[in-house]
């Protein structure tokens, strides 16, 4: 079984939608269309444990299925007997046999009822079981896994792949077995009734199977093609609808209509082709039935005509039973051919499900990992190295010792490794060299859960969950009282806007909070972080998307939030950075400089340079616009005296 592997996710590409604007992007992917073996011992072996608790129910279902199949497939024989009894002028036996037929109908009904109820109950329990297992496992995987994997693909594993397995384990395997049972009954009965007629009937089977097998490979490709076309069509549709403003602003309507028409047409043609192929199955099977029927009538008839002694009752009884059997004989064969593809698909689905379950969490607690009850907040980076891919270092020899309660700001260009450092602290990734210690304990010796309990994170893009505002603030501490929630909201300045809402804290966030501005969402996530009362706090560009007004509120909240906690702050706004106890300047994965704002500016290194890049242009503008004067007035108003900067290089 293919593993997910580090660099890529070979076995993970899904039937992607997506309008493609020009040509195709290689031939990778489409593995939803990849069909597995018909019998994959590994998959079956892995699935068995899931079925074990339900073995009695499964047995019952199979029993019921056998009874039902027997009643159904024995019917033509009894019909033959009934006709024979009629010809023999034996009304009592006719009535008796009619009773048998009706009884069989009733038994068949009951058996099928039991079968369906039982197997569906089991099937749905399996569905819940497998999905929950997968989900828990997915959540346990490290962040580097999530970096590589699209959530959409994970979800298709959770939904459609599990569903095909459920189908295979339940109705699929039962139908398969029922077809086999039916086929066996028909073959044995036919051979015992009249081996000559039976052989005449069977003679049609090989060509039929050959034709069907040939057909099914073609049909499979055709249906795969339809799926691809449909998803391309719908993907383009969705994309152009979401981007309709961009489309209109660039007057792309005609071009897009042309392309949509193209995809629409391809979809139509593919579907018609697939429809044509599937329209051919039934006539093929019915032709086989007709040929076999004709064979039975001619052979049986001529034989009777040439026979010396004929029992007319037996003859017609036999012909009746046989003609009815011929119609029945081909149903299971057709089903089996059709199920071939379905079973292949289920095996492929099974493979993918176990791929998920077999992905080892990259970060696992050691068996002897300790529980961290109290955290003071001392963080030591001991010569930390990190890389995602061997040979491409992201962090190099980071050596930094942070005292409890200290605020550290990370500064550097995009890609300097700022976010990576903070992710290492919460053990979203594992260091590849050196060690990070909290209160002297190596992170790898601490249970991850007990570590994250003491950490709070506010990300650049606030991520909220559906539910009420109160739910979201209490996300990290579900037992929090309303007072505690409000206190947290007050502390970060979120209380005001929440109170103004008609439903206040009970306002429901729709679609991840899209009904709130990004600033408001960020305030909620600040409240969420503060309520969790972490000892160590990570702010990753937390105010980047926020407008000036909201930022002013957050600035105030920040002081509250950082008080007494060890904090790591990534920000591009210098006002935030200035307040840090120490500023760590990262350059291409290494620490370039460490110091306070003033020290660094005086040093005239990377920081001073960065700093100038940001503010010089305004400064220039201000001065040329005689703005310096205004600024000076403004500053004087606040009683500040301008001082010449020392950072000139």
């Amino acid at each position, binding site marked *: 079984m293919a593993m997910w592997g580090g660099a890529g996710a070979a076995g993970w590409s899904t039937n992607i939608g*997506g309008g*493609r604007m020009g040509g195709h992007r290689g031939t990778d*992917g489409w593995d939803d269309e990849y069909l597995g073996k018909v019998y994959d011992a590994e998959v079956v072996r892995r699935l068995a444990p899931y079925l074990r608790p339900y073995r009695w129910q499964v047995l019952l279902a199979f029993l019921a299925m056998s009874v039902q199949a027997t009643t159904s497939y024995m019917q033509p024989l009894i019909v033959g007997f009934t*006709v024979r*009894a009629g010809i*023999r*002028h034996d009304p009592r036996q*006719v009535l008796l046999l*009619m009773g048998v*037929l*009706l009884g069989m109908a009733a038994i*068949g009904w*009951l058996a*099928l009822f039991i079968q369906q109820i039982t197997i569906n109950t089991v099937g749905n329990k399996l569905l819940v079981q497998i*999905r*929950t297992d997968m989900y828990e496992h*997915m*959540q346990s995987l490290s962040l580097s896994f999530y970096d590589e994997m*699209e959530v959409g693909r994970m979800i298709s594993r959770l939904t459609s792949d599990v569903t095909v397995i459920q189908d295979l384990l339940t109705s699929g395997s039962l139908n398969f077995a029922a077809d086999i049972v039916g086929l066996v009954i028909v073959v044995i009965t036919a051979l015992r009734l009249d081996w000559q007629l039976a052989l005449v009937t069977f003679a049609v089977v090989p060509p039929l199977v050959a034709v069907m097998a040939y057909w099914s490979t073609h049909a499979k490709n055709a249906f795969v093609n339809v799926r691809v076309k449909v998803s391309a069509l719908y993907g383009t*549709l*969705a994309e*152009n*609808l979401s*981007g309709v403003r*961009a489309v*209109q602003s660039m*007057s792309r309507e005609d071009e897009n209509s042309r392309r949509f028409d193209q995809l629409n047409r391809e979809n139509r043609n593919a*579907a*018609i082709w697939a429809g044509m192929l599937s329209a051919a199955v039934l*006539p093929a099977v*019915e032709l086989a039935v*007709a*040929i076999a029927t*004709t064979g039975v*009538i001619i052979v049986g*008839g001529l034989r009777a*005509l040439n026979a010396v002694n004929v029992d007319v009752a037996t003859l017609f009884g036999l012909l*009746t039973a046989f*003609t009815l059997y011929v119609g029945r004989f081909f149903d299971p064969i057709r089903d089996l051919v059709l199920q071939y593809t379905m079973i292949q698909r289920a095996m492929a689905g099974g493979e993918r499900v176990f791929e998920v379950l077999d992905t080892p969490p990259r970060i696992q607690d050691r068996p002897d990992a300790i529980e961290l009850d109290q955290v003071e907040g001392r963080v030591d980076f001991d010569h930390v190295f990190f890389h995602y891919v061997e040979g491409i270092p992201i962090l190099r020899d980071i050596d930094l010792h942070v005292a409890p309660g200290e605020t550290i700001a990370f500064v550097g*260009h*995009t890609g300097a490794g700022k976010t990576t450092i903070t992710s290492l602290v919460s053990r979203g990734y594992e260091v590849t060299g050196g060690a990070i210690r909290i209160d002297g304990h190596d992170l790898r010796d601490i249970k991850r859960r007990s570590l*994250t*309990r003491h950490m*709070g994170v506010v990300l650049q893009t606030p*991520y909220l969950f*559906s539910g009420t505002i109160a739910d979201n603030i209490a*996300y990290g501490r579900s037992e929090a009282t309303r007072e505690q929630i409000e206190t947290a909201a007050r502390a970060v300045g979120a209380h005001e806007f929440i109170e103004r809402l008609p439903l206040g804290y009970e306002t429901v966030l729709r679609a991840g909070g899209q009904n709130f501005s990004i600033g408001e969402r960020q305030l909620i996530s600040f409240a969420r972080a503060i309520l969790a009362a972490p000892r160590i706090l990570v702010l990753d560009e937390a105010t980047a998307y926020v*407008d*000036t007004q909201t*930022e002013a509120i957050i600035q105030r909240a920040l002081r509250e939030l950082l008080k007494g906690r060890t904090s790591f702050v990534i920000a591009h706004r210098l*006002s935030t950075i200035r307040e840090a106890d120490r500023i760590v300047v990262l350059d291409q994965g290494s620490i370039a400089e460490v110091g306070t704002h003033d020290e660094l500016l005086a040093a005239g290194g990377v920081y001073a340079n960065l700093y100038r*890049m*940001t503010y*010089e*242009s305004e*400064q220039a*503008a201000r001065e040329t616009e005689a703005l310096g004067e205004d*600024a000076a007035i403004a500053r004087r108003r606040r009683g500040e005296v301008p*001082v010449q*900067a020392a950072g000139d290089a």
Partner: protein
Amino acid sequence: MRVLYPLVNVRYIPKARMKKLLRLLPYTRPYLPQMILAWASVFVSGALVQFSPALVRFALSEGLQPVYEGDRFIRLDGNAQLLIYSALAIVVFAIGRGLTQFGQTYLGESIGQGVSYDIRNDVYDHIQRMSYAFHDQMETGQIMSRTTQDVENVRMFFAQALFRIAYIAVLVVVSLIFMFIINWQLALVSMVTMPIVIWRSVVFQTRVRPIWLAIQQSLAEVTQTADEALTGIRVVKAFSREDFESEKFRARVQAQADLNLQQAHAMARNQPLLQGLGMAQVGLTVGVGALLIARGQLTAPDVLAFALWLNTLQLPLRTIGQLVNATARCVSSAERVFELIDVESEVKDEPGATELADVAGHVRFDNVSFGYNNVSPVLSGVNIDARPGTVIALLGPAGSGKSTVVNLIPRFYDVTGGAITIDGRDIRSVTLESLRKQIGIVQQDVFLFIGTIRDNIAYGRPGATQAEIESAAKAARIHDFIVSLPAGYDEWVGERGVTLSGGQKQRIAIARTLLLDPRILIFDDSTASVDSQTEFLILQALQELMKGRTTFVIAQRLRTVMRADEIVVLERGRVVQRGTHAELLQQEGLYRRIFDLELKDQEEALGRPVASRRPDAEPPQDRVGVSQEAE
């Protein structure tokens, strides 16, 4: 415009429904020959199918005639030739019926596909030309479901329901005629379960449909729950809420499983019963038939033929419920689709609209007001005079109407009062396409399409050459980044492609707009979200973009607007202040307040002002204060 919201839960009026169904008729016109052939196939195949049992009966009863003396069977009086020929006729009929059945299915499918193809194209063409107001109101999901699921329902009606229903009717009628000709008493006996089967099948469908819909809904919730937690896995992990999320997910999955089971129970109550009834009907008919044989009123081939007819009818009768349901679904779906097609865009070319060409770029707002309704106007009495090549900055708090002002220029919405003119011509008197060709827009939320970077830059001009694309990218300060990617301009963006930062996206949008070479430019600034270096690059790119164009800038921060020719400050849809930066600073007002707020921010950041490093720094001649040498 018509409000579309209520449609979601609308109760349909039966009379109107029929009309909607009739509106589908024109869509079938191009497929008239296929229609006629399909109908012919329905009748021929239905008849041929039910002729087969009659042929079996004929072959056996004419080919093998038992001779009786009184009650005693003497011998078999056979006609081998008749037996062989009539048996072979079965195969011939099977070929005929195979062809017609194939024709029926295939033609039905191609008509359905053809109709849905045409409808989808119509809907798409219509929707993408609808005004912003429409798209503001309609959720994308709503349009999607109408264009996909509803159109699919219409297709299913043509592909399956329409012809299948007729086909089943033919099957029933033809077999009943045969049965009644052979023996009317047995024919009556054979009809006993038929109404029950049809009735149960229809009832079942109406019962199971709501469950099925609930399952779909529930599945969507499962997906959404997983999506939310897996997308936000960083937050989940940061707060150690994995167990909570697992439990939430389990509950959703369990809810779906419960519904599945409910559906399974409904099916188990129905399907086995129908199957049992089918078997019982055969038993009953054969039993009574055998009694009639015993009485000498019927022969064995007669009974066999009855049994064969009953077998062919069983499955089709059971599907009637589905077909009836598909028809009902088609009606309501057609209604929803036409509703979409019928909505008229209130922004469209006026009769006699002319091309807008050779534009100098003089944009005037003449006492413009705008509102979605009469109660609360979004803009009122806005006057702006943007002479060719000037920069107008729009400033104001969220909801003040800045975006609306710029959205009125390309007629994404139409003014509700006053007029907007370009070079003196009312924009409503020119064609939409020629108007929008003159206007380039860089939106705050840059929307990139799935495709290569090249495709995206050339989005508004699909025919652009590589050289043109590259020079636009260079001007937008994004070329260096693009060539640093493994596949360069062929790198894919979007879902499966490279992830771009906000600043990179914006520069691609600038390149894409540069390539359009518009006379009028609209820039919705979002440089707040990028780091200083990127911001620098964007400002440089922007400067390139604004050269010689009339520009409207919506700014988040003052540094973008300070050098504009005119700054228009909006508050609640009205112009409250206007003038240059220097003029506005002299006045008490919103501009000053914003300025102070930002200045304070900067002051804090700087601690002390940095003197210009370059005493020789030229006052930049460009309207936005960007140093050219920074890169």
